């Protein structure tokens, strides 16, 4: 009996283990080995920490990373502020058929690729684009206005791209909140603000935390949106990794950058969880 059960257990476990081993662990070991070598001559390499030292000693790379992290945290925060009312409306206020319809409307933009969505924003924001033309037509501005190629454009793109990943977990957690709890809160003399603070937010916390982690990671690892909307000053960390690998043929430094991104983003998520008194276990539960 026990052997039969353990066989089934291992069979079920096998795909997960294979996935982790073949697609996550082995490539990372390989990448680690690449990051720990230095080119000493044509086709010759030696073990060294030079790549990591380059990252730490060149202010440009640290600044780029810090900028990427700060912008991603900000994007996560804005996405939460915008996404929460949307999720609350879908989960609590909408009734009957309206609920699935609204949910699908949130999904629709994600049926086209990220590239197309970003192009859409470019058409809207560029100097000869729709918003600029509209403002001129309304007589609000005199000449064409350039709305593209700045940090605000990157922020709009990031929030728009990650919206769904905030709304879905929030809708899921909010819909499990019993309406009678909210009513009880009001019956006991709570104001809207205190009901929101004491009942709704604590209940939605797992959704907020998982949504924030996903959005933060997506923003930090985003490549297309910052490049296309940011223009000449975009400067995103993934762009540095791409150019080291593809343009400079410098896989060693690129691999080191990849690991720094992994370490630092993990550290940021860990610190954020500690600061807010949350844990991954609670979020999963």
């Amino acid at each position, binding site marked *: 009996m026990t052997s039969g059960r353990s066989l089934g257990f291992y069979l079920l476990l096998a795909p997960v283990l294979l996935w982790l081993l073949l697609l996550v662990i082995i490539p990372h070991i390989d990448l680690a080995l690449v990051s720990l070598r230095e080119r000493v001559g*044509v*086709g010759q390499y030696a073990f060294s920490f030079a790549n990591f030292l380059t990252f730490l000693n060149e202010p*440009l790379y640290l*600044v*780029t990373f810090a900028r990427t992290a700060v912008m991603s945290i900000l994007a996560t925060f804005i996405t939460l502020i915008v996404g929460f009312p949307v999720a609350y409306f879908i989960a609590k206020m909408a009734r009957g058929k309206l609920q699935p319809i609204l949910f699908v409307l949130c999904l629709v933009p994600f049926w086209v690729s990220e590239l197309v969505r970003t192009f859409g924003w470019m058409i809207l924001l*560029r*100097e*000869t684009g729709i918003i600029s033309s509209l403002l001129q037509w309304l007589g609000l501005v005199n000449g064409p206005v350039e709305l593209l*190629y700045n940090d605000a454009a990157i922020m709009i793109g990031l929030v728009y791209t990650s919206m769904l990943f905030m709304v879905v977990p929030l809708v899921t957690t909010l819909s499990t909140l019993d309406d009678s709890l909210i009513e009880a809160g009001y019956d006991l003399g709570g104001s809207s603000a205190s009901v929101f603070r004491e009942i709704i937010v604590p209940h939605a916390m797992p959704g907020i935390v998982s949504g924030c982690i996903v959005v933060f990671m997506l923003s930090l690892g985003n490549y297309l949106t910052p*490049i296309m909307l940011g*223009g*000449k*000053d975009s*400067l995103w960390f993934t762009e*540095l990794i791409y*150019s*080291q*690998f*593809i*343009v*400079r*043929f*410098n*896989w060693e430094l690129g691999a080191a950058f990849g690991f720094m991104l992994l370490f630092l983003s993990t550290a940021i998520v860990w610190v954020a969880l500690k600061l807010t008194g949350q844990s991954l276990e609670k979020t999963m539960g």
Partner: protein
Amino acid sequence: MISLSMLKTTTAAAVLSLAATQIASAETLRLLTWGGYAPEEVIELFEKETGHTVEVTKSNNEEMIAKLRATGGGGFDLAQPSQDRISGPQAEFGIYKPIDLSKIDDSLFIASMLEATKGNTTVDGEVYGVPHVWGTSGLVLDTEAAASVKDYTDLCNDDVKGKVSYRLKRPTLIGFAYSMGLDPFAAYGDEAAYKEIMDKVEAKLVECKGNVKAYWGGGDELMNLIRSGEVVASMAWDTGGWKLNGEMPNVTFVAPSSGSLGWIDTFVLPAKGKADDAAYAWINFVMRPDIAAKITNVAGNFTASKGGDAGVSEELKAKYQKSYPAADVDNIKWYPPVPAGLEVIEGGVLDRVKAAN
């Protein structure tokens, strides 16, 4: 009746197996190339004539090398990097295999171009590349709005402020260096001297950054910027300028006074390519004058095919002659092979320019 149906079956089987052997001798050619170098029409003619099939992947120099490096030279049977980007990566990563020149019909090539490419792509006595398409990069301008721009450094002029675009890639560094009176190609062999030149170029590009609308990445992106009028002066390929000239008479390619930069895209065999016969057949096929003219008409650039310019449309020839009076052709600076290691110096410069305010 039974015997008749059996006969039918055996005949069918025989026909099938015959067809199978024919298919086995035909190969699939996985071609890694630039947009426009393998037009649909040419592929169809080739497939009909030789029985091979062609799968095209479009890319650029850096991505071609990166892709081949990732697989150790596998996944493709024929690639088309520029001639200056062959010997360095080959010495460093060993991603190509030598070309068997006896399988190439050299009477199809312009002899001087073939010899020059062979010389530039030789590593350890073996030839790794033969030429295909060549062209130049220089300035694509709205000749009215950007009348003051005659050379690369003029892109930093005040009257085109905010209406300039160029790439953050090595051709920009080289072009600016020449325009500033420096000679980067002469310093290729000397890393310290090259770094000194690049430091000066970096300072100039940082200073010039305020003039730039956006650094373009792909040809279509630049086309859109110029079409919309948001950009009036840019560094780009000759074909881009000629193409826009058809839509906007003011816009055209101008050879900068310090000289255009000339490139030759080649044919190379990736180290682990599996369809060499089809690859050689493709090279000999597209270098035929009639086919080469078809490619020129689509891609806009001329080829190294002898007599290949005869079938090119008159319109394109006229644009070429207007952009290139004879003196300007002699002034073209052809890229010499890039020694391994220079990319790291350039990379640092490009990163710092991008980060500058």
